[in-house]
Each structure stands twice: as C-alpha cells, then as structure tokens.
C-alpha cells in the first residue's frame, strides 16, 4: 500500500500551488470573472508554457509529461483551492480523455495543440430534457456522403465561449436513451451552422446554449466507432467526475480553513466564536468531511482503470456532493451575515461547491447508480 506521490508528482503539486497562490489571487480571479471575456488567456498561456500542466496527463510522444489520472487529480485539487475558472477540466481532462482513448490522426493533431495551449475544448453533451442521462440525446448526426450533418441543442456547455473545439455527442442511430447509436465528434467551434447564446454561470465561469443547424462535418471528426460511443462517453465522464471530486476536495479544504481562521478572529459575547463548543463540533464535522473527500477522490482516481470503475466513481461523487453541501452551508452559517455577501471569497467557494454538488450527477443520481451496481 503506497499513498505517496512520486517526486515528479510532488513537484507538480508544489509548482501549481505556488503559481496559483502567487498570481491567481481572489482579486485577480474576480477581475477576470467580471471582465468581458470572463477568463484570463494569460493564465492559460502560463499553464502551457510556464508550468507545462496542460501536458500533465499526456504521453511524452505527444509532448506531454507522461502522467495520467493522478496528475489530473493533483492539478484539479489546486484548481479547487484557487477557484480557477480556466477550462482545465473541459480541455485537458475531458478533451484529452476522449483523444487519448481514440488515438489515431485526430489525437496526433489535437493533443499537441492542447499541450501548447492553442486548443480549448468544450464538452457539449447535456441537453435541455436529458438531465444527467448521457444517452438522452435528441441531437442527431445524419450520414451525408462521406461525412455527417449535425442538428440539435446542447445545454449549459461550460467554457463554450472560449472554445476552439467542441466535443459533441449525437445520435447516429437508435432512440432516446438507447445504449447503441451514440457517436462522438470533435469539431471546430467556428463551423458553419453553429450558434451560441453565451452567459455567465453562478460559480463565476462562462457557458453557452449551443445550437447546431445543419452543421456539415467530415468523417475524420468522429471519435471512436460510429454508434458505439456511449461506453467511451461513460468512461470519460467518470474520469471527469473523479477530477471534479478532486476540485471539490480543494474547495471544501479552503472553505474549512477560511472558517477556522474567521472563528479565531470573530468575537461575540466577549470571546472568539471558535471557543463555543457547538461551533467547535461543527468545524470538527466539517474537517471530517474534508478528509473523507480527499480519501474518496484518491480511491476513485486509483480505480479508474478497474472493471467496477463506475461504482467507485459514484460512491466518491455521492460522498463528496453531500460533503460539499455540508461544508459549504456551515462555512456560510459560521461566518454569519458576512458569509452571504458577494465581497468575500468564502461565498464564491460556497457557490462553486454548490455547482460541484450536481456536476455530472448529484448525490441522488450517484447513489442510485451505486445501488444499481452493488453486488
């Protein structure tokens, strides 16, 4: 049994953590969040060139660092601690996940662009009616000569306004919620027939409703085999879910630390509120949720390649969704009125924690999936 990071992994964590704590201050983040473009391309450039983290999970043959899910976990936890809005999850974890699994010419062409920062990928999978069911697809890709014609509406596509590419799930056959007939495409974000409605999200990022109207795409945009994409989608979404658990671990860690600091400073009834036993016990309960979030993230990340991957990811996501709510709500409660003001970082961590609760399925969804996979 070895839970130790390698020297390279420790260096990765330290360099990302140091860079973010030095440059990605809360004020700098909010300036980007409130700016016109909603993100900081300079940070993305630094991720690529200064830190090299956009290559963390890719093979050295592609120019990457030769890592995998653990490297993603390390980066995502730091992203959670700093409330980073730039789309590492969408581009590296999800986009990279699909491309690594597909291999071939598309991977050879696009992975180096991810690593050098020139490709930004958004994952257009959810639809207005489908909730968390990955097979609930009304978007269609109809065969047309050598290529396909894409039609449909994708909901709440995070990072879409910044994207150079979309990964799109669509039906090339089968009926809604059927396991077969799902295909995955990587297409340029500026293809003719794509329109977007962009908006901010409550957790400080940007997203879009993305509409595809008779978008002509080549056969070379297909990832994996036509009509057999659902298992790959499930695998990559599980990898992304584990990464979001890592981000959540970072977020709840900061919520807890911030609350401890505040409780030592804030005085009521002549003493620091941290001296009240009822609040001490609450902060102990928060601490236990934080530690278990880290444990579950590690467990799920280490088992992503195993046969019962889905069950382990669902157990982690269920636990972390519940923990994120408990820690987030109590952090605000212990801060009192100041906790619900938009000025302090604590509220923004709470907002991100609240979105993490339901990202790729909420606690109920993952508990039901876990139950369905129990022995």
């Amino acid at each position, binding site marked *: 049994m070895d839970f130790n990071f390698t020297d390279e992994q420790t260096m990765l964590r330290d360099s990302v953590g140091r860079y973010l704590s030095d440059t990605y201050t809360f004020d700098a983040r909010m300036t980007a969040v409130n700016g016109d473009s909603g993100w900081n391309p300079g940070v993305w450039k630094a991720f690529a060139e200064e830190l090299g983290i956009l290559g963390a999970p890719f093979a050295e043959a592609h120019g990457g660092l030769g890592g995998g899910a653990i490297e993603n976990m390390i980066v995502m936890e730091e992203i959670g601690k700093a409330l980073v809005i730039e789309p590492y999850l969408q581009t590296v974890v999800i986009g990279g996940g699909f491309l690594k699994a597909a291999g071939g010419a598309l991977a050879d062409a696009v992975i180096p662009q991810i690593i050098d920062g020139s490709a930004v990928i958004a994952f257009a999978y959810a639809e207005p009616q489908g909730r968390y069911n990955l097979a609930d697809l009304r978007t269609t890709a109809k065969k047309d000569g050598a290529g396909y014609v894409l039609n449909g509406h994708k909901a709440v596509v995070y990072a879409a306004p910044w994207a150079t590419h979309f990964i799109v799930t669509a039906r090339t056959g089968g009926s*809604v919620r059927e396991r077969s007939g799902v295909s995955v495409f990587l297409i340029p974000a500026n293809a003719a027939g794509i329109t977007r409605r962009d908006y901010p999200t409550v957790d400080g990022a940007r997203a879009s409703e993305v509409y595809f109207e008779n978008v002509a795409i080549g056969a070379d945009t297909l990832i994996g085999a036509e009509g057999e994409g659902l298992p790959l989608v499930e695998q990559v979404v599980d990898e992304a879910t584990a990464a979001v658990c890592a981000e959540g671990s970072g977020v709840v860690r900061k919520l807890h630390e911030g609350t401890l600091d505040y409780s030592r400073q804030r005085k009521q009834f002549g003493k620091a509120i941290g001296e009240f036993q009822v609040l001490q016990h609450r902060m102990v309960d928060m601490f236990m949720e934080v530690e278990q979030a880290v444990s579950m993230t590690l467990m799920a990340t280490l088992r992503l390649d195993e046969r019962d991957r889905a069950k382990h990811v669902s157990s982690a996501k269920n636990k972390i969704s519940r923990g994120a709510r408990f820690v987030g709500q109590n952090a*605000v409660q212990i801060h009192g009125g100041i906790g619900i003001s938009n000025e302090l970082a604590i509220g923004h961590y709470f907002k991100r924690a*609240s979105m993490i609760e339901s990202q790729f399925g909420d606690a109920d969804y993952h508990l039901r999936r876990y139950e369905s996979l129990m022995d």
Partner: protein
Amino acid sequence: MDLNFSAEDIAFRDEVRTFIADNYPAGLRAKSEEGEELSKEDFLSWHKVLAAKGWAGIAWPVEYGGTGWTSVQRYIFAEESARGDAMRLLPFGLNMVGPVIYTFGTPEQKAKFLPRILSGADWWCQGYSEPGAGSDLANLRTKAERFTGDDGKEYYRVNGQKTWTTLAQHADWIFCLVRTDPTVKPQEGISFLLIDMKTPGITVRPIITLGGEHEVNEVWLEDVIVPVENRVFHENKGWTCAKFLLAHERTGIAGVAASKRGVERIKTIARTEIDSFGDDAQPLLANPFFKRKVAELEIDLTALEFTELRTLAGESSGKGPGPESSLLKIKGTEIQQRITELALEAVGHYGAPYFRGFGEGDNEHPIGPDYAHRAAPTYFNMRKTSIYGGSNEIQRNIIAKMVLGL
C-alpha cells in the same frame, strides 16, 4: 379540541380569498412566482391596496388603526395570501417599530408615526446589527451623546455604523439601538431612537449578496443630530424595546404558508423535469429518492404548522410570544432552506446559468425553463434565514436556557 374552523372563520376565509383574487396586482404575482427582485413600487403597491381596505395593520389593535383580528384570522390571512401568491408586507414598520411605538411610545409619537406606517407613507428600516454586534446585539457601539442645542432644545449626536440593513436604500426612517451610557453593563445604557434618513451625516452603502441582489446595506452615521423626542421609552432602557421587538419578529418567522406554496412549486417543477435514471423517461417526481425528500419536507412542514397552531392557540388565550417562538424560527427557516435546496436539485443543469433578472423594457428571455433561473440565487440568498433575527445557534441557546432550564 377542534381542528375545524368555525363558520365565521370560513366566511372570513372566503372574503379574504375573494379580495386577494380580485385585487392582487397581476404583474406582482408573475414576479413573485419566479422569485424576481421587487422594486420599491412593487413592495408598496400591495401595501396601499391593503391599507385602503383597512387590512395593513394585521396584528395591530383597533384603536391604532389595526384590524384587531384574532390569531386564527391572522393565520387564515397568511394562508390565503400565500395561496394567492400575494407577497407579505414588509415587517419593519408594521411588525417591528409599529408595535414598539404603540406599546412604549408617547402620544405624540403614536400620532405622528403610526398612521404613516399603516398607510405605507413611511418606509422603515432596522438599525440593530453592527459589524461587531451580530447575534451578540448588546455589544453594539454606535453612540449617542446628549447635548443642548443653540435653540435650547435637547438632542443626541449619533456616531457609528449599522450593517445588514435590509432595504435601507428605500427607507425614510430607521429605528436604531444606540449606546447612551458606555459605563454600565452591556444591556443597560442602550436607547431606542427613531432617525429620519434625510438627516445630514447618514450614508447608505449597498452590500451585494451571493445571488447578486442588492437587499442589504451598510448605514454610516456621522454626527447625526436627532431630537430627544425621537427616543422611544426611557433613556438607557432601550433593551426593553429591543427584546419586545425581537419576540414580535420571531412570530410569523416560521413562514408556513409561504413554505406550502414553495413545496407545491417544487412538485410542479418535478412533474415537468425528467428523471435521469433508467431507460424510460419518467417525471422527476417519480424518482423515489426525490419523492422521499419532498414527502419528508411535507411531513416536517405539517409538524411545524401544527406546532405554530398550538402556539397561536396559546397566544389567543392570552400568553405572549415566548421562548417557544425560537422553535418556530429554527424549524421554519430550516424548511425554507430545504425548499430552495430541492428546487435547485430539481432544475439540474439549468441551475448554473446566472441570469440577472429583467430590467424594465428588457425582453431578454432567461436561459432554460422559467422556473429555473432563480433557483440558485434563491438558494444562496436563503442561507440568510438561519443567520438573521438571531442565528439558529442563538435560538437553540434561548431554548436551552429559557425552556429547558440548562
């Protein structure tokens, strides 16, 4: 023991129901259904309709222009208001400073302020909380020094800062707790002042909350001159008024009627939204996990409702609101928060888009279904309910001390 309303109560209920259906402004109903922020005019429009009908001072005695309704009638009115999606009138004048003035005020204060509170002519806000005095209210520092003016009259000079002042941006008057004697025990040496917001030296600064709303403010008082006749009750005895007001604030804080509507709205959403799981696309309300949470919520709400009814029955037999109102505050606000949690869960992906509400003449349609775009901001905003009015931790302390004798 009788759970049924009397024939008079039923007739009263029908009268209220009809009046609300016929008179509640339609534009307001649409706004409150979607949880939109309300303008000053929105708040006042329903107030003025009710004032004209003589129904603004719901809990006030008849001699001061109130309805003189029984607690059962007040309960029916709250129930019918929620049923008709009618907003609750703001409490600062009607439920807070008004009762303080008619209980402790001078005849001049009663004559000057009470009719204008009833009619909605004056908008009041509450100056209790300070940066260093939240739940520990007695720790307040805003000081009022007494002096004789050049005109020979007595005044206070007020300096300090109030915070979390709800809707102070609209207010004509603020009622403040101020320290008039710093040398005695914290609860002594406090006075209760009525201050005209137009007085020089008052600055209102917005605090934007998590959902993006401008609902609360900081109020700075710098050399604000207040005539002594604007003090309610004796100098240094303001804590008596403060305690009286807090007990009144806690009644009606359970919000049972509004929570019932909230549960109904969740069910409506969950009949429209589709469950994620399985091959068949069932409504979310058929999802056994979600349904169980709605059921538990309904059961807990029923327990709260009947506990409130028992409290009301106690009040109508002459007992004032006691420490048991802390139970209503704790359970009522927990249920209000769970409703917003479930609503956010119910809307799924469409909880994420941040939509900043419509301005006048702005026709941009929200992202996703109409019921979705306020789910997250409302969830964030409602975290306040377990903090304000004495945090739920403080309410538990009150029950431990006053009810359990610990």
